[in-house]
């Protein structure tokens, strides 16, 4: 009997702690959402608040009707995420599969080439000079697509160990005996069995592309028309900071502030930027958790 009372107390305590932490996780997003549908004048008077005095969807109307850069940046982000994920997933899967072949001469050397990139890197400065002076990708779509996001050693090694443990050699051997080429064996035997890991790593890569702001921030110095939604959001919040820090030149500030979307539009844009993640989250969640567990300690 003693134990039952104690168990009950623990359960209640556990729920209290988890409710507090869960609220901490969700409340900032809720504030964002509520602010975006609060009337702009109310926001200026009361600040961002959880209780909207007056609701207005003007911010969303403004974003989607005024033909401004938001929709355009959204399209760039979507295109970037799709192309990047497809390319990244292709080269990661192929490479992981190649490294999983025990008979391959030089396999250890190849694995080391992949692995070494986890230990050492040239750093931002040489990377920047390499991409801008050697490959001239500054101010092109490639600047968003290529640097750092497409493939990383961690994903390749995760893919490799899945092929080693999750795809039985016997099945592949059977395919060879039936006269399948390496490519055929890969596409018709190995790939279907590796679907879970392909989905998980595709998810990691896709989220990486959707959330990335650094590539655009570093390499798109002139072509603001190539800005992804993250870059656009970033520039907006920076403009606000910049104007506030340099408010001594008041006439300029007023001019600038007039061109910045109002207080509610700002939050509405952030909601639009985060929406795809929230929408797909319930569907991808399990896969994502599995991926983290797979990466486990090595992450």
């Amino acid at each position, binding site marked *: 009997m003693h134990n039952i009372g104690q168990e009950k107390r623990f359960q209640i305590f556990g729920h209290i702690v988890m*409710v507090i932490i869960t609220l901490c996780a969700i409340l900032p997003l809720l504030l964002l959402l509520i602010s975006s549908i609060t009337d702009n004048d109310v926001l200026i008077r009361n600040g961002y608040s959880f209780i909207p005095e007056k609701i207005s969807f003007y911010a969303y109307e403004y974003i989607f009707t005024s033909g401004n850069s938001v929709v355009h940046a959204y399209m760039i982000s979507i295109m970037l995420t799709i192309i990047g994920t497809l390319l990244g997933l292709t080269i990661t899967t192929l490479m992981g599969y190649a490294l999983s072949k025990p008979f391959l001469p030089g396999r250890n050397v190849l694995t080391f080439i992949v692995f070494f990139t986890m230990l050492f890197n040239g750093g*931002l400065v040489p990377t920047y000079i*390499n991409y801008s002076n050697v490959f001239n990708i500054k101010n092109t779509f490639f600047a968003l697509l290529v640097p750092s996001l497409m493939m990383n050693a961690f994903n390749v090694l995760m893919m490799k160990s899945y092929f080693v443990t999750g795809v039985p050699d016997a099945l592949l051997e059977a395919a060879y005996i039936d006269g399948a080429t390496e490519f055929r064996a890969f596409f018709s035997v190995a790939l279907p069995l590796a679907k879970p890991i392909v989905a998980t790593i595709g998810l990691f890569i896709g989220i990486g592309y959707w959330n990335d702001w650094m590539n655009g921030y570093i390499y798109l110095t002139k072509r603001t028309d190539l800005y992804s939604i993250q870059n656009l959001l970033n520039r907006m919040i920076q403009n606000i900071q910049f104007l506030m820090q340099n408010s001594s030149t008041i006439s300029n500030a007023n001019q600038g502030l007039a061109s910045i979307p109002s207080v509610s539009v700002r939050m509405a844009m952030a909601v639009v930027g985060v929406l795809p993640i929230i929408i797909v989250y319930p569907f991808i969640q399990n896969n994502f958790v599995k991926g983290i567990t797979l990466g486990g300690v090595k992450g």
Partner: protein
Amino acid sequence: MAKAHYKKKMSPAQRKSLMKRSIPIYIMALPGLIYLFINNYMPMPGIVLAFKNYKAKDGIYGSKWAGFKNFRYLFSTQDAFVITRNTICYNLVFIVVNTFFAVMVAIILSELVAKIKKFYQSVILLPYLLSAVIISYLVFAFLSAENGFVNNTILKAFGVNPISWYQEKKYWPFILVFVNLWKGIGYNCIIYLSTIIGIDRGYYEAASIDGATKWQQISKITLPLLRPTIIMLTLMAVGRIFYSDFGLFYQVPQNSGALFPVTNTIDTYVYRGLLELGDITMSAAAGVYQSLVGFVLVLVANLTVRKLDPDSALF
């Protein structure tokens, strides 16, 4: 050894068939290798830039050697100390705080019986998927001097004067630790949770029959069995102690100059040197400092892990 021996003894026919099987595999690896070459290996020799007087028109390799001059400059400034201190100290605090809360949440989640625990877990993982830019908006909604929730609602309710959050550096160590915890707790607790789920329930049943309290079960069974995982993850984090989350330290404080003393890390310093101040050689020197010390730390951390538990080691 045996393998090499075996290879030497292959007949020409066997060798031919091995090559025939291997060539398609090499072709499969090729796109990935090209990418690694462009993205990772081509920049690597560029670290010599830190030992040069960089002139853009001469390029990295054409510029004149400068020996350790750039490093002498870097370490003669206050900056070198500040960015090293910030990077290491924040990481140490992150490790302690994140581990404590992640283990606590993982234990609670594992013990709860109600279905709603799945919901808790989903929600606390969500912040991990948000970009640094979005997080900076969320923080801004709370801390903006004019429109922020904290100044307009919380402080007002207590009759406290508004605070210019983005100008006052004393609050930022706490804000950054909190934001980092908020973002990472869901991710970190998943790994601990999966370890706990792997523990044999028999231990708990036996302990319960013997009259062990809940706290005794946690401290005598769960925590000791979690210890190897905690040690491994901590060592891995120590190996990365010279690297910081650029988005957290650059975006969340919105690059506010007044906050640099407490928000400047090696990564933000390298970035600002390169793209805001145009001080490329200094930036390169700091980058090399990070790469080399970081490399040594990863090696040391991994050697330690390998001593403790060879299966968890990276190599």
